């Protein structure tokens, strides 16, 4: 199945921690400053030292992004080319995307009075939509991050696993949360490197959608039942009222209190 969906393949065993990708990312996004140890509003990708392994952290560009399904106004969307992009002109700043993301990727401009969400956009506007590789992939001096068609990247990853027994036989991002456009290879288990291991492969949006789909049913059934109940009580009241009027009593209420 040939799609023109793009992906990055990040081989943790090859990374030398030189921070070239982080630097190139800053440059591509017009931010200055040194590489940072943690994701921030000015560092959309970082290289973290996890017990001697260098692990890149940034948005994984999920096939079915939790952030995108969470977003109140639909400001976050998955493009056909793979990148999950953010339209800041729609955002209202509810920050639901930040908690919804299982990898805790989105950041917020807490210091600004009109703050926006910030995350890796996989260089969609400036490069990927024009057929160029991302800035980080281009900058990597040892080919630890490479860019290409997702299918091709998966094939390459499998080839490496077959050729070299040091790899754990798992491509992180192939299926986690329904798959992603960032694929990782490693020679230590992913949970030891701080990767989120989901209990099932189902994408998170489906988890919450299941509950939502019930709601219209609740309304339909509940509404009909209530309307029915109302009809019954109303009939009863009408009968009562008619009887009461015969006795020239205006309202059949409050009688009890009066007697007591």
């Amino acid at each position: 199945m040939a799609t023109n969906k793009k992906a990055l393949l990040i081989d943790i065993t090859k990374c030398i921690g030189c921070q070239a990708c982080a630097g190139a990312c800053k440059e591509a996004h017009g931010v200055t400053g040194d590489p940072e140890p943690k994701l921030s509003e000015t560092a959309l990708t970082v290289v973290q030292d996890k017990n001697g392994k260098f692990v890149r952290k940034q948005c994984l560009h999920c096939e079915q992004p939790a952030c995108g399904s969470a977003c109140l106004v639909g400001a976050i969307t998955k493009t056909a080319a793979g990148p999950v992009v953010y339209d800041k002109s729609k955002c209202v700043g509810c920050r639901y995307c930040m908690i919804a993301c299982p990898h805790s990727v989105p950041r917020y401009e807490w210091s600004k009075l009109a703050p926006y969400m910030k995350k890796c956009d996989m260089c969609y506007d400036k490069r990927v939509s024009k057929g160029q590789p991302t800035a980080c992939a281009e900058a990597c001096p040892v080919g630890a991050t490479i860019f290409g068609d997702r299918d091709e990247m998966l094939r390459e990853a499998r080839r490496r696993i077959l050729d070299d027994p040091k790899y754990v036989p798992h491509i992180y991002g192939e299926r986690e949360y329904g798959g992603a456009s960032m694929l990782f290879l490693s020679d230590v288990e992913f949970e030891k490197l701080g990767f989120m291991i989901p209990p099932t492969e189902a994408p998170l949006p489906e988890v919450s959608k299941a509950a939502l789909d019930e709601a219209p049913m609740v309304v339909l059934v509940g509404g009909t039942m209530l309307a029915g109940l109302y009809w019954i009580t109303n009939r009863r009241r009408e009968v009562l009222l008619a009887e009461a009027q015969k006795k020239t009593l205006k309202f059949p209420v409050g009688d009890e209190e009066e007697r007591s």
Partner: protein
Amino acid sequence: MPETKTKKPIITVWRVILGVIFLAGAYATYLRFVVGWSAATNLSDAQPWGMWVGVATLCGVGLSAGGFATAAAVYLLGMERYRPIARAAVLVAFLGYVSVCVGYAYELGLPWLFWHALIYWNPKSVLFDVMFCILAYTTVLTIEVSPAIVERLPFNGFKKTYMHWHHRLATAVVLAGVLLSSMHQSYLGGLFLIFRDKMYPLWYTPALTTMFYLSAIPAGLAMVIITLYLCNRSLGTKVDPKILKEVAWVISPMLILYFVWRMVDLVKHGGGPYLFKPTSEAAYFWLEMALFVFLPVFMLNNRWVMNRPEGVYWSSAVVIAGFITNRVNVSINALERATQANYIPKWPEMAVTVMLVTCAILAFRYAVIYLDILPKKAKSTRKWLANAGVAANA
């Protein structure tokens, strides 16, 4: 709570307290909108939602549940006995929702763009549904409370037409309100479903929607009881304490139902082993259970307690405290382990929350004083009903 008796002196303790609350609130507002987030809150990338979502929104909406429960009982199920408190219950809900809406102004990063929610729809988002319910139900509540104001207007012609149409549409409006708020209460729980892998197992369950719904109704009724008790005490209204007691009786079985359901669900979804681990989460969980279930169920079934109005009042207060603990646990404490945020609200966050609650209380107080919300004299309850309650709503 407005416990002031209308006394002569201009400077009373309550007025001083009110002054402090509003000054603090105003300064916190300045910090939030002029100086910035970091000055006003302890929110961070690890903890993007804090007290304003956890307390202002979740609790505000939850404690408003008494409105639809009472409205359904009286207007749809014909439980006429509770008609004297229906207007007040709906007013509590209305003010609750208005506070939530105002709270959003603080909570959203770009509050002046809130209308985006109306034009950019994302039906996949639970928050979108929540927003929509808030807007729709606030509108419905406005219609439901409007007669209390309209009947005070001097324009007779307008008044008559308005009441006529209101009367005709009342049932539909109440029905819409009940459904909307039922949906809304559950959707609030639905918000947390997508945090599956970040929430502590003691709170995460696919049934969060049901749990939120089941816990909101008793809490909402407790809120109505508290409000009316305080009105009787300080505003000279005459709501039959027997009615409050009856409402309180309904709460205890609801809490037990909630508890059983919650426990079965917890064990079913693998939360069982976490119940007695020596973690702070387990402690929070048992605190929640103690305040929301054990203590109130004991109090509500205790003759000595229930035979005095203060007893009814304090049992309701405990229910509310337990309810707030639950919502704070779900929205803040359940996430802290995964996000590794050590969140404690900053004082401006608390100041804003307290100010919102105070505004709602004051609005309620003046509504009771100046409008026909509650019967003011015991003898004329029936006449009051005839004039206000019945005339305004079928």
